[in-house]
């Protein structure tokens, strides 16, 4: 029995499931009580120890674009767009075909979050993706959004932060999103000189934090140090690919200009087998260090001189310093504690986590261990103290109902979108907020309760056939998810799901059985207030499951 903290024992299983997982599925509370909360946490901290069902594995495997490397994605989905130049219809069809990538990324993410047994791994994947946010609606990022999560985020969620920082810094999605690709000495196509975007955000958002003690001069110096980190040009060998940036197309997917696209030459088919240039470095995912674009002058960054001769090693050293800085330790610990404990996390806990982070050289698992076995985490004042984000709310609702085999994730994605939190849809690099202040407002309550009403009555078409993927679609083109930025407005853009061309004759699929309200209440640990219970009992029978899903208790975790 876990005795740290003053939370009553009968609430602990639910608390663990609400924080380390996306809430309970039917029977989960009992299962956690059976094996004990401590063992549950230890298992979750070691995801490899938890076996994944063959069914889920094969479903994830079937999402083919999730397992394609960036070069392959570019060849399969972007080259055809360019080749169709001059034929508007063919080009449109080729572009629509690429929507399958976002759709599969969303399906994979939601599927694992709802059905996957490695729940903490899923929570941490969403957490780190948001921390290292990339927006699917910016230019070519939509090609790599799923690969980015699969290759740069997932393998490192509980490993060393330095590895996570490295993987994100070098992934094509991030290189494109924060304009690392056009950051270079000298001229590359029409790009000339440094671009500070990544250098600024890696300090402000990814590592030190906004008051992290760096100056504009440090931003500029780091941008110089990181020159040459990018994607190689056409015919350059390695991962031949040109500069990228916030061009016309970058701001508006579907923008007819296509100026950026012209910069991308043919990506050689067997690119990975070609010999890289002397002094250059590249990896299997498309990162390419181009010494020809690197600024070899000395730089003073955070009070230390980086020798110009070091090339890519200078950038690696700078990332080492950032990853292991005590300021970074505090920043990350604060964010983790804010996510797992409270909007205003207890400073003493943050300090202990930061100490552990530093002592362990940025070991995320060790830092989480301090958190999950702290008296603060198990303080009863923090039970159900976090207001679920739209993402957490929709996923926890799908889990609580125990709906098996969701085939159509559209209604869940659509609900998250209406609530302002579509996966992969945050435009700016700061990611979504993690506080009640950000998500609780009158409008959001209306949308949440409408979702709860529809789901609780079995009226969401979760069992309808999935939208056909664009790869096999002809005629009216690809279906699926789209992050729509046409109405863009900074952090508050209206994004809407759209799935054009769905056949008029498409049925609703198998009707979903409405969840049984009593079973729902049991799944949630029978922990409802008197007022909530009375309101549910006063409601017509067919509304009761909806009332449970729309209850204040279910809004919190």
């Amino acid at each position, binding site marked *: 029995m876990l005795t740290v903290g003053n939370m009553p024992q009968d609430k602990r299983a639910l608390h663990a499931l609400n924080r380390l997982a996306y809430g309970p599925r039917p029977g989960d509370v009992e299962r956690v009580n059976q094996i004990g909360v401590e063992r549950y946490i230890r298992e979750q901290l070691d995801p490899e120890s938890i076996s994944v069902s063959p069914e889920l594995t094969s479903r994830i495997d079937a999402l083919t674009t999730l397992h394609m490397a960036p070069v392959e994605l570019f060849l399969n989905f972007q080259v055809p767009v360019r080749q169709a130049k001059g034929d508007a219809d063919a080009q449109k069809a080729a572009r629509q075909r690429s929507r399958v990538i976002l759709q599969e990324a969303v399906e994979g993410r939601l599927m694992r979050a709802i059905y996957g047994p490695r729940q903490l791994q899923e929570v941490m994947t969403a957490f780190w993706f948001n921390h290292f946010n990339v927006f699917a609606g910016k230019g070519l990022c939509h090609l790599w959004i799923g690969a980015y999560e699969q290759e740069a985020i997932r393998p490192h969620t509980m490993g060393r932060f330095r590895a996570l920082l490295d993987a994100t810094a070098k992934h094509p999605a991030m290189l494109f999103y924060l*304009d690392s690709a*056009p950051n270079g000495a000298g001229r590359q196509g*029409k*790009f*000339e*000189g*440094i671009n*500070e*975007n990544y250098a*600024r955000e890696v300090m402000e958002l990814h590592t030190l934090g*906004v008051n992290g003690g760096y100056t504009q001069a440090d931003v500029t110096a780091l941008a110089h140090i990181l020159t040459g980190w990018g994607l190689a040009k056409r015919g350059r060998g390695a991962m031949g690919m040109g500069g990228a*940036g*916030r061009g016309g197309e970058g*701001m508006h997917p579907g923008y007819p200009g296509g100026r950026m696209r012209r910069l991308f030459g043919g990506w050689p088919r067997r690119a990975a087998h070609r010999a890289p240039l002397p002094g250059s470095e590249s990896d299997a995912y498309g990162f390419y260090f181009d010494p020809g674009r690197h600024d070899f002058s000395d730089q003073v960054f955070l009070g230390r001189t980086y020798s110009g001769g070091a090339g890519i090693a200078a950038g690696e050293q700078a990332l080492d310093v950032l990853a292991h800085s005590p300021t970074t330790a505090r920043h990350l610990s604060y964010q983790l504690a804010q996510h797992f404990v409270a909007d205003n996390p207890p400073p003493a806990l943050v300090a202990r986590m930061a100490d552990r982070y530093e002592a362990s050289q940025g070991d995320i698992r060790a830092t989480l261990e301090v958190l999950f076995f702290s008296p603060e985490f198990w303080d009863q004042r923090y039970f159900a103290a976090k207001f679920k984000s739209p993402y957490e709310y929709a996923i926890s609702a799908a889990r609580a109902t125990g709906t098996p085999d969701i085939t159509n994730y*559209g*209604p869940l994605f*659509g609900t998250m979108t*209406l609530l*302002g939190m579509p996966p992969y849809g945050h435009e*700016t690099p700061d990611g979504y907020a993690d506080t*009640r*202040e950000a998500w*609780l*407002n*009158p*409008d*959001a*309550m*209306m949308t949440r309760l*409408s979702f709860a*009403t*529809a789901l609780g009555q079995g*009226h*969401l*078409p979760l069992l309808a056939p999935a939208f056909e993927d664009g790869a096999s679609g002809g005629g009216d083109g690809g279906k699926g998810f789209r992050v729509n930025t*046409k*109405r*863009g*407005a*900074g*952090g*508050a*853009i209206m994004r*809407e*799901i*759209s799935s054009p061309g*769905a056949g*008029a004759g*498409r049925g*609703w699929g198998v009707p979903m059985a409405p969840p049984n309200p009593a079973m729902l209440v049991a799944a949630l640990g029978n922990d409802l207030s008197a*007022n*909530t219970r009375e*309101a549910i009992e*006063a409601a*017509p029978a067919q509304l009761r499951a*909806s*009332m449970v899903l*729309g*209850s*204040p208790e279910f809004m919190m975790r």
Partner: protein
Amino acid sequence: MNRERDEHRYEHEIARAAVGIDRRAFIRGAALGAAGVMMLGPASWAARALSGDSSRKRLVVVFMRGAVDGLNVVVPHGEPNYYDARPTLAIAGAGGEGAALDLDGFFGLHPALAPLMPQWRDGTLAFVHACGSPDPTRSHFDAQDYMESGTPGVKSTADGWMNRVLAAMPGRSADKSSPTEALSLGANVPRILSGRMPVANIPLGRAAARPMPLDRPIVETAFDRMYRGSDALSHAYQRGREARARLMSELEQDMTEANNGAPSPKGFPDDTARLARLIARDPSIRLAFLALGGWDTHVNQGSSRGQLASHLQPLGEGLAGFATALGPHYQDTVIVVISEFGRTVRQNGNGGTDHGHGNVMWVMGGPVRGRKVYGAWPGLATQQLYQERDLAVTTDFREPISTVLRAHLGLGDAQIDRVFPSSPRATGHIASLIAV
């Protein structure tokens, strides 16, 4: 009529609309939704609106998120340094295709903003140049945060300045105010409007009138009971119900009037046209906020054409259309257009501009003393620049806004101090911005 069957059908319509499958289903759903709202009894909010403040003065704030390049919006064509710093981005000052539209012999307007020239000529459009935040940050997030909280450099401010304006307007309290006094158009309530005063939020575009399962009276009654308390969630629920009942009814009329209910892809101009109709119909709307993005032009910014131009075009059209659509209400409306900071004076090597400092503020509306570029122009010679790279800020953004609050909305000095605590002393350059 078979009520149960209709309700069931309605649910399916909603689900369908929610995933955007079928536009016809959406329109049918909207009609059904309106019937639900009417059963709530619109009399309650109508009575409330009539009992409100008789004043009709209102303020609309448009936020250009991402830091617009103010030097290419109101172009200092009389400044040779401008042309030296921007060999390919500069906009010509002397007539001809693509030249700036001259304003006063020194400044000119970006040609994509030609739709606003009638407002300039009739004296209801003004600009304040070299305006901005005194805080040196070049982070979008921080700078937007400061401009929305109204307290540059202070991170701990919990609410937004527009919410404080709402609280400061005479005779108002969180309990008595109308739920649509302050309106935000967008996905969620922005920082600038967040705070203790209630704010209504309507999504942009056709999502605005999308009916919800919660609009059904049977569902509403059930949740009313669950959320009858005084906790934060109940409070949000109660406010949401009130605002929704009212807006659904108004938007339903609006959908019928505008384009026969067909959504149009025009974006910002549609949003401003809708806002104008809402204002005309609902006199209790006093504050409104819209944001639009796409201004972070690090790469390929373009000049008189290109990326920036294609973003300015709908903004200009939208604001001009707003002025027209407001009709007589334009006389009682002031529109302020802001952005978190300006961009570097020199163009960068990527055909764009990077994060800078000073910018231009736009002020438009019947009460504005326009046809004038206000402020103190600091010059663009290297030694005149902020940190030798950016347009300096000679007017704090809070000064023109304070003038609007005082002369237009009738706030006193003590109230303005609450909206903008510890604001710097006014320069006096812009005291005459609003006709009293």
